[in-house]
């Protein structure tokens, strides 16, 4: 094992400050965590949590401040140094090399397996088996990373970090990419491990914080604004401290008025990346002035469905009728002109051009309109004023509208996208995981915006994994399972349990008749 001087029993940060160009990411942060303790670190996007953790791991150098391990001051120059003192981190974006096996990924960091012209890969596999048995984290050392699901990769990350000798685990939003079931599973495993380790748990999700942590520290704008015992505080209290004001996630107070049918999808068949039929006869209807929530475990065809609606993926067969026109296999430009708004799942690569400024990203779909261009020249003044108006209206927090969009936090990037899509005045809006990985404050704002558009008569298709979000916002909820709509039910009839059962593809307990007829048909197409 890496030569730990002695098992880490205490980590103490004092006055950590880090500046990036134009941003004060960490502003004199002091924290402390001991063995046997879970410290939750919560804060909005851009509050400086990840930066702080990267400083602990030696990836960034702090501008000032000190780090103490077991009372002794340390200076880490690379993550190797941090591991040598028993500190390990599971990053939000997994740090696994996809074309190598689990054992090879571990062997990268285990220097004592590196012999001259000989790599002890068996030793790495053995170490993995020991740790995965001890902590009950099943992992196959010979599997390639790209073959594993997100949940399995998460386990590999945990096992890897433990194998490297970490006794203080930093978990950076470990549940952000997991399905609800995988999340519950992870929380249970972490609770079991907590007694012999120290854990710093970063999350937006206050129910997870509540379930797992002993103490909680809240970061806002790079500074610690609150320290306390988790047990003594309610999630709503923490949410208010995190955002600086009381957060009440808005709800759809459905008036029950059903609008005209707007978008009608009939027997849609679409192939996935591996060539198999991922959507297999999906039919769905969206009406004007409603939010139709699509619930389902990710990987059941949501991504392919959204791609097909946006014209980014060929349609095998079936129709997408929108305003009397079939939009199947049309180009994205035609679909945009037909009045379809689209908030994509992957905001960094599909929603924006990261290196473009905020104002340029705001006109990505309309740069050719007379409003923004004249005789093939862009109208700079119009673009600037458009950006200023939208920045104000959508509360986009950026140093200026000329800032590169990719440098903003996730919540603000999402506001840029939403501002662009909504300001175009679409008839329908497809929003895919619109608040994934976004803090409470931005989430509240985005939800309010979606509900306001609904009142204006726009039809909104909300694809999400967050049951709370779907249940709060929707008029009707469609459950997708294996490329088909298993059931559409009014939101008032939906409960967490009922949706959970439907999402797992089981028969609907409340109306067994129709569900049973549909389930085998869906399950037959594997």
């Amino acid at each position, binding site marked *: 094992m890496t030569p730990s001087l002695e098992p880490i029993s205490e980590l103490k940060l004092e006055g950590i400050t880090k500046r990036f160009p134009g941003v004060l990411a960490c502003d004199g942060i002091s924290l402390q965590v001991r063995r046997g303790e879970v410290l939750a670190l919560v804060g909005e996007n851009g509050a400086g949590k990840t930066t702080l953790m990267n400083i602990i791991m030696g990836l*960034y150098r702090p501008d000032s401040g000190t780090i103490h391990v077991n009372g002794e001051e340390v200076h880490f120059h*690379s993550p*190797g140094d941090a591991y040598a003192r028993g500190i390990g*981190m599971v990053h939000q974006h997994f*740090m696994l*090399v996809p074309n190598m096996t689990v054992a090879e990924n571990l*062997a*990268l960091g285990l220097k004592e397996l590196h012999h001259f012209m000989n790599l002890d890969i068996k030793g790495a596999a053995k170490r993995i088996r020991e740790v995965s048995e001890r902590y009950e984290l099943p992992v196959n050392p010979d599997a390639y990373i790209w073959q594993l699901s997100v949940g399995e990769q998460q386990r590999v990350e945990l096992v890897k970090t433990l194998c*490297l000798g970490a006794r203080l685990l930093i978990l950076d939003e470990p549940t952000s990419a997991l399905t609800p079931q995988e999340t519950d599973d992870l929380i249970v495993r972490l609770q079991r491990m907590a007694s012999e380790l120290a854990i710093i748990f970063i999350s937006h999700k206050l129910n997870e914080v509540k379930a797992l942590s002993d103490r909680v520290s809240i970061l806002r704008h790079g500074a610690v604004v609150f320290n306390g015992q988790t047990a003594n505080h309610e999630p709503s209290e923490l949410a208010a401290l995190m955002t600086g004001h009381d957060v009440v996630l808005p709800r759809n107070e459905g008036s029950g008025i059903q609008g005209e049918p707007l978008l009608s999808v009939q027997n849609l068949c679409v192939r996935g990346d591996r060539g198999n039929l991922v959507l297999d006869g999906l039919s769905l209807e969206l009406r004007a002035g409603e939010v139709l929530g699509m619930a389902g475990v990710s990987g059941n065809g949501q991504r392919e469905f959204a791609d097909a609606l946006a014209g980014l993926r060929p349609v095998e067969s079936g129709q997408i009728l929108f305003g009397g026109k079939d939009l199947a296999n049309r180009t994205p430009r035609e679909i945009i002109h037909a009045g379809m708004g689209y908030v994509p799942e992957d905001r960094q690569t599909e929603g924006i051009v990261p290196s473009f400024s905020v104002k340029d990203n705001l006109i990505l779909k309309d740069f050719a309109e007379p409003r923004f261009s004249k005789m093939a020249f862009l109208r700079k003044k119009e673009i600037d004023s458009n950006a200023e108006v939208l920045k104000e209206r959508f509360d986009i927090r950026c140093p200026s509208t000329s800032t590169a969009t990719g*440098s903003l936090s996730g919540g603000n990037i999402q506001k840029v996208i939403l501002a662009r899509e909504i300001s175009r005045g679409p008839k329908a809006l497809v929003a895919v995981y619109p608040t994934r990985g976004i803090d409470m404050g931005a989430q509240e704002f985005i939800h309010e915006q979606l509900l306001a558009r609904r009142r204006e008569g726009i039809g909104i298709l909300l694809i999400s994994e967050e049951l709370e979000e779907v249940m709060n916002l929707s008029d009707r909820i469609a459950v997708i399972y294996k490329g088909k709509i298993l059931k559409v039910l009014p939101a008032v009839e939906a409960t967490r349990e009922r949706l959970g059962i439907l999402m797992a593809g089981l028969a609907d307990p409340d109306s067994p008749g129709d569900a049973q007829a549909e389930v085998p048909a869906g399950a037959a197409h594997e």
Partner: protein
Amino acid sequence: MSAGLMIYNVLCLAVPFSVALLLAALGENFNQRAGVFNLGCDGIMCMGAFLGFMVPFSLKATPWAAYGNLLGIGAALAVGAAMGVVFALVTVTFRASQGIAGIGLQMLGWGLAGTLFRHFVGGVTGVEGMAAIAIPGLSKIPFLGGVLFNHNALTYTALLLVPACWFLLYKTPWGLKVRAVGTHPRAADTMGIHVDRIRYQALMLGGAMAGLAGAYLSLCQAKMFSDDLVAGRGFIAVALVYFGRWSPLGILGGALLFSIAQSFQLSMQVWGIKFPYEFAVMLPYVLVIVVLALARKARQLGPTDLGKPYNREMRF
């Protein structure tokens, strides 16, 4: 002439043809596996070819003459490694665009070798070069003996380097690190691996092997030097790495395919088959383009971060 004899002749010629490509492409493979593609390979080969020729040429009438070839090869390896370091400085440390830097290095190597040659040597002069060593016993095997076991030492070295490079890449700690920094440098960094250091090492090794490939051309194949000796083989080598899907065995297959096409077109001329000469010369190059275009786009196993400089504090 019987068909069997024709095939024999083509293969006997193809193996020596493939050596320079094989050496350069195996080296380039280390570069690319580490995430850097070095288009300067061709320029490094030019310098390697020049020094491989120049050293034995200037030692001809001295007591060192016996070691001329060996010293020439050493000089080619050294200049290749040095140029690899220069390329690493530009692309890894200063994070310049790899494509442009590579073209620059190619032109530098090509121009420098030609200029130095004209300054110190001038006209067409040959060197003795390296003689073929028939391997006792094995070279007597019918057919295979002539094709595989009757060549010079560098040819044997190149063929043995195929399994050696495979071993280095897949079975040693260094190979593991190379593959990691080319695919997911940030993951490698979080595991305590010095991304830049590994990329420097890979570029040095790749450069040295390209230098060796150049020396093979001047010392073994042409036994002379001229400006156009390398003739774009460095670029073919880069293409062969893609063609071989970043695996040493695949690269061997690509190098042999290309060389067989080349030796086939030469043989056709020798046999006097009426066929437009220019078309035949084109054949191997067309083959590479077609194969590259049709090659499956499965990048699952390749270095997915190829061509991107790594910056630890980069936020997007």
